[in-house]
């Protein structure tokens, strides 16, 4: 079946429908990872967005148990070529069937490189995937332009608190749309992890007397999470060690008076170099964010810049002065992507130990 991707600037890509055949409108973003399409599809940070994979051959190893959450999150999925066979010893099915079962519409067979270049040059755009060959441009363009990501955190976060047992320190994890591997990375290091819904109050968390607090990744514009920011402010005033990733990092910065802004086309992939300003070491990181913290708006007596992106100099991490708070923009939990910065979880564990 034919399918079309129509961008808000009127560009149309014609291809073949994959996944669900329903129409969808969303914000189109690209991811440059060459492996890990399942981790991408199940990353809650993609809520409210449709994702283009720049690597052209997708689905080669089918559906493996490598899910970062219980469902697929992107509104739509855009690839160059979806493999017709899936080959891997852990393969449980084919990607197209997965998309269908998750009711995710998609399009294949388009020039994903041209699309990526367009998004790079013009910035992230909204778009529509439709299988209706007789679409009326005048009608749909306003609809496409009107689309806004909105409040997706509440959608992506868990609804109920749950616990993963562990013999080590207890960590309260605020779930804004957390990837499983963040939870797993802590749990594997022995932590008892209690996962709280995004709207949990600071009081509730403080009352549980955790050894540390983890603020997770999540989707959407950090500025829109006003009430969460208030709660985080309260959390940061305690002495409980806090580690935050991605959205959590942005929210912490906002809670300390800094500003965030939308990147032209974001960082999504597994090859971004980040520099640890303390030692000068560079790590290759996994990234997925459309917004960034503008460190120049931060009071440097409140927080020091800890990491920067080597490519574009944007902020990648902040260390809060005199506090046990440490936050990063990138994803030390990897999945997908390089595991180079996994040591940061160890650092968090040390922080918790030190605080005792």
């Amino acid at each position: 079946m034919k399918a079309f991707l129509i961008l808000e600037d009127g560009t149309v890509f014609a291809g073949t429908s994959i996944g669900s055949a329903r129409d969808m409108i969303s914000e189109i973003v690209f991811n440059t990872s060459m492996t890990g399409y399942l981790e991408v599809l199940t990353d809650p940070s993609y809520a409210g967005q449709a994702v283009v994979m720049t690597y052209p051959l997708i689905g080669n190893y089918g559906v493996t148990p490598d899910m970062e959450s219980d469902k697929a999150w992107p509104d739509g999925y855009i690839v160059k070529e979806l493999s017709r066979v899936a080959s891997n010893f852990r393969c449980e099915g084919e990607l197209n069937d997965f998309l269908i079962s998750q009711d995710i519409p998609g399009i294949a067979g388009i020039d994903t490189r041209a699309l990526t270049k367009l998004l790079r040059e013009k910035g992230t755009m909204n778009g529509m995937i439709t299988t209706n060959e007789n679409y009326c441009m005048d009608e749909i363009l306003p609809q496409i332009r009107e689309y806004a990501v909105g409040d997706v955190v509440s959608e992506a976060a868990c609804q109920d608190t749950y616990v993963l047992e562990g013999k080590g320190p207890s960590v309260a994890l605020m779930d804004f749309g957390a990837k499983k591997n963040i939870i797993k990375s802590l749990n594997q290091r022995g932590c008892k992890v209690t996962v709280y819904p995004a709207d949990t109050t600071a009081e509730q968390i403080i009352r549980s007397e955790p050894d540390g607090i983890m603020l997770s990744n999540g989707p959407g514009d950090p500025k829109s999470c006003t009430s969460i920011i208030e709660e985080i402010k309260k959390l940061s005033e305690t002495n409980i060690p806090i580690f935050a990733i991605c959205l959590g990092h942005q929210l912490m910065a906002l809670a300390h008076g800094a500003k965030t802004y939308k990147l032209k086309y974001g960082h999504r992939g597994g090859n971004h170099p980040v520099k640890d300003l303390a030692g000068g070491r560079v790590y290759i990181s996994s990234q997925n964010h459309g917004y960034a913290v503008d460190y120049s708006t931060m009071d440097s007596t409140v927080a020091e810049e800890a990491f920067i992106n080597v490519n574009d100099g944007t902020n990648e991490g902040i260390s809060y002065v005199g506090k046990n708070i440490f936050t990063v923009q990138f994803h030390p939990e990897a999945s997908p992507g390089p595991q180079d910065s996994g040591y940061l979880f160890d650092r968090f564990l040390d922080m918790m130990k030190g605080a005792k």
Partner: protein
Amino acid sequence: MPKNNEIKRVLVIGSGPIVIGQAAEFDYAGTQACRSLKEEGLEVVLLNSNPATIMTDKDIADKVYIEPLTAEVVEQLILKEKPDSVLPTLGGQAALNLAMELEESGFLKRNHVRLIGTTAETIKKAEDRLEFKSTMEKIGEPCAASLVVENVEDGVKFAESIGYPVVLRPAYTLGGSGGGIANSRHQLMEILENGLRLSRVGQVLVERCIAGWKEIEYEVMRDARGNCITVCNMENVDPVGVHTGDSIVVAPSQTLGDKEYQMLRTSALNIISELNITGGCNVQYALHPDTFEYCVIEVNPRVSRSSALASKATGYPIAKVAAKIALGYTLDEIKNAVTKKTYASFEPMLDYCVVKIPRLPFDKFISAKRTLTTQMKATGEVMSICDNFEGALMKAIRSLEQHVDCLLSYDFSRLSKEELLEDLKRVDDQRIWKIAEAIRRGITYEIIHEITRIDIWFIDKIAVLVEMEQALKACAPKVASGRGGIDRELLKEAKRLEFPDSVIARLTGLEERKVHDLRYEYGIRAVYKMVDTCAAEFAAETPYYYSVFGGENEAEKTDGCKKVLVLGSGPIRIGQGIEFDFCSVHCTWAFSKEGYETIIVNNNPETVSTDFDIADKLYFEPLTPEDVESIVDIEKPDGAVVQFGGQTAIKLTEALMKMGVPILGTKAEDVDAAEDRELFDKILEECRIPRPKGDTVYTAEEAKGVANRLGYPVLVRPSYVLGGQGMQIAINDHDIDEFIGIINRIAQDHPILVDKYLQGKEIEVDAVCDGENILIPGIMEHIERAGIHSGDSISVYPAQSLSKETKQTIEEYTKRLARSLHVIGLINIQFIVCGEEVYVIEVNPRSSRTVPYISKVTGIPIVSLAAKVIIGHKIEELGYASGLQPEADYFAVKMPVFSFEKIRDADISLGPEMKSTGECLGIAGTFDEALYKAFLGAGIRLPKFNNMILTVRDEDKPEAVEIGRRFAQIGYRIFATAGTAQALKAGGVKAITVNKIEQETPNLMDLILGHKIDLVIDTPPQGAERGKDGFLIRRNAVETGVNVLTAIDTAKALITSLENTNIQKLTLVNIAEI
């Protein structure tokens, strides 16, 4: 960390002559590194014995020494040039081994020279089997159960404890020399004995066999601060068991999930960190197909063939970055030269798929076993880029230039299903074609996978191509009945999968031109995408392109300047080697200097010409008319240069003219005139130049007619080939039948030539002609008499035995020929001199194999002169007097180097068909020293045991006596077969008679296998009947590491050289000063 300012003068060691397993990739790496060092203001002293390389140019390094790569030479050079540092990680295993030798002897320390790029400790940890294993154990990286053994008994004991099959890997050898898989005690003993001998340290690793696992490689970079990145990972389509150099390789990996990918990536980073490598490194893994279990196969603590491939596949300049790291820079301080925005501390992301296919030499060695093992056999490789795997595979296949253009090119349709299944078990270079045939027969993926262990994903991709073949074939009835052609969607899909128009035409029955026109009518045209290292995330500035069908075109025609298309020479193969890349690159530079925009088309990932900053634009594409036409459509060049890219480029001349692209320099019809027998004879007649009599034929009957008229022996060869492919000396009708049969195995577009064979001195000349005047840098004389391919002959400059008159005749003939062929640019002529009589045997109005060599030893840059002449300059404007240039003060000897030990069952005897893979140079103030250096550079280091075997054909006996006498004089004990022994004794030379092979033991074979022989001189009789005996002797000798000479003249040169081994202190010549 900024640059270490203590480093001011660096000695870079190259990799020496091209042999299988160590080829052009090191010229690429070395050249890039030298340029990178010079960019930093350092003085570069270069040592490499290979004159065909670009790195040994005076514009690449400040001081250039083309000298033998021995520890003595390096020591002498260090004392002479006083470098403060040595960079050994860019010259392959050869340079690394040399560095180790100097470090271990304490020489470097004594002379306050530091190794940069890597430490001796690192090299040892990575290369020494035992140390490597214990290092891996220490950091918990698994290796296959293995044991280093130093004798056969221990090997057998260990193998039997872990069970067969076992893999054998000798320590410190290149391309896995002497390795293999043993399935039984018998096989083990055979391979082990050989491997122990080939290993520099007499060690072989006996290892658990992991054949059938996925073979995955990672290219890793690390700086002194500990930052590390992976440039690229690669997956071998052929599972473990085939040397990665002989495997079809895809980048990035296709069948690994992120979990497997990251698991191995993390392991690679751990390894490079533990080994403390600063620079580039290659880690090879075997990954169990059904679990997460993996083993580290090998680590190369240096740039390698794989890193050249990774560089070209991603656009990340590994050698350049490695050189900067050696100077102390960290990755985040080095700019990404492709994007010019980002830094070297990132990982390239591909938005395309890269396929590499090895170029195997079985078309040259028709008797050789095609089986692929852990011993590398490929002489070169091709790479292709596309946005789908099928397309990349199809493009790579047609880039091979082995008469293959699709998966139907080898015909297995006559095999029964059982035979086919049986044949599939044999791992050889035709395996993907056999898989395609199996799919056509309806054999399931599972069965194919069961036999080949190739991943289902790849098998399915082959199936996609087979299905397309069938869909196209299904159009044939419609086409035949005139009811139409191919519908747009099908054609579009066929092109997306990179089916060439010619194949579509064959399958559908449409004419090729029709397919072409239909495509244009439907608007199905190739578009070009950029290799930008970052999957379009950042705007890149380097125009490095590949084609796909469908989508947006990124290659833009630039206006405002003249544009020249330079056609490269494709994969390195015997007969067309790195020399032609040297020519292409120099031509590009010369045009660039003259203000042209330069566009290179080539498909060889190992070469300098495909480095992204050589030409203004690089198209990484197959060199076929259709592929070139698509580029021409977009670029609309003002002209194309074909005379520098060997036969590959020359073959495109006609097609280019049809596209309306002017051929710059010598016109196509004149190129033809040199190859067309009748036209050429007419020109020779007009010029009053004699040539050996001969004629053109198509059949064996005609050939026999001509041969009998001329009288045997005659030379038989196809026209339009390079490296004498298919050329043979026939001594009777029977030979003719056999040779013509071999030639006609491949359909010939051109007639076969039969010439009278003259046994005289062979002389070679390269010249530049501006249409009027010529410039001959020098005359080269071959040591071997005519009958041995010029590429396999020892070539001496200046010619030693020619009279002044003969030289004048040669100059005059060259001038006449160049003028009457209207040569604008380069011409290469081969002469035979019998007495004072000069005959022309071959004229090539293009660059030749000897061009780099003669340029370097005369100091006359003839490629750039030729390019300038092509642009319109006259020789005299360029600062040279016309005619033969005065002879240099030096003697130079170019020595062929062979890789016979790598190719099982290849006949090593020399003849009119070229067999050498590379060359080295000896240059000195005296002929004797130059010759000595040349043999030293070629790795012939004698004497060891002072024993030799002499067995010659009857006509060589008189000379053999003389040679025997000289060898005896320097202390050699001579073993000879009855006839030769008798001749020697009659001449008063002491000889020990030994039995021939078919006679009872002890015979020749026992002697050879006894490891007590230095040298075998065996001159086989001419003709097809070379005797199984001689073949066996030569093979066994080569495989046990004994030097074998098959021409009496080579033997004479060797003894001259050995008589001069008293030359203790070599004079080192800085080529840059010539």
